[in-house]
């Protein structure tokens, strides 16, 4: 994998972008009447964990 792509994928901002992206897709689904409650819990929880993962 090219270094630049690897750096981007493993950068500290990427997870936040991914989680916001998945949440946005869920929102579109919700508006369309399709719910993904377990996915919502996963997004909620991963976001909460990532938010404090720099602390000890």
């Amino acid at each position: 994998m090219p270094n630049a792509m690897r750096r981007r994928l493993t950068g500290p901002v990427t997870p936040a972008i991914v989680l916001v992206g998945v949440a946005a897709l869920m929102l579109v689904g919700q508006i369309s009447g399709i719910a993904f409650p377990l996915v919502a819990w996963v997004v909620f929880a991963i976001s909460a964990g990532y938010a404090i993962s720099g602390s000890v």
Partner: protein
Amino acid sequence: MLSSSVWRGSSHWWFSTGLILGGVTAGLLAATLGSLVLRPILTYPMEVAAVVATLALISAREFGLLTFPLPQNGRQVPESVVLDGGAYGALHFGYEMGVAVRTFMTSGLPHALGAAVALLAGWPAALLAGAAFGLGRAWMTLARHWHDDPQAWDASLDSAEKRIKQALTVAVLIAASSVIS
């Protein structure tokens, strides 16, 4: 923690496993507390209102609109636990951090998650949320481990940390709206 000795050899996998197991434990504890103490005395609208209020307060704090201290047991897991060996020590260290009983809360989002799990989650969702919480904690540390320039990674985190947490707050609010509805 990011430069901890748990990153020697394959210890990071044991550490990450510990984080996930700790998160599952925390999820089960929150669901148990909710089932035994809170839900018998609260109606569903009251539970939803409590979660919404918690999310509103935490979100306001994350965006700098409010300032208040977060409940926390502000003690570090002693790194001496990793002296128990590369595998068990890292697993133990990760488990303690995954349970988040001894940690510094640099964001209120885990508190919002705890409230939501205690008040709204069924057992499958509580287990899944707990594991996902641990995975979230592991994601940052694994990403830094795999990045080929940790110093640049640290600098990037320092400059973007506030925006990262605000973006995560947006993701949480959207996810919570799906959980609640």
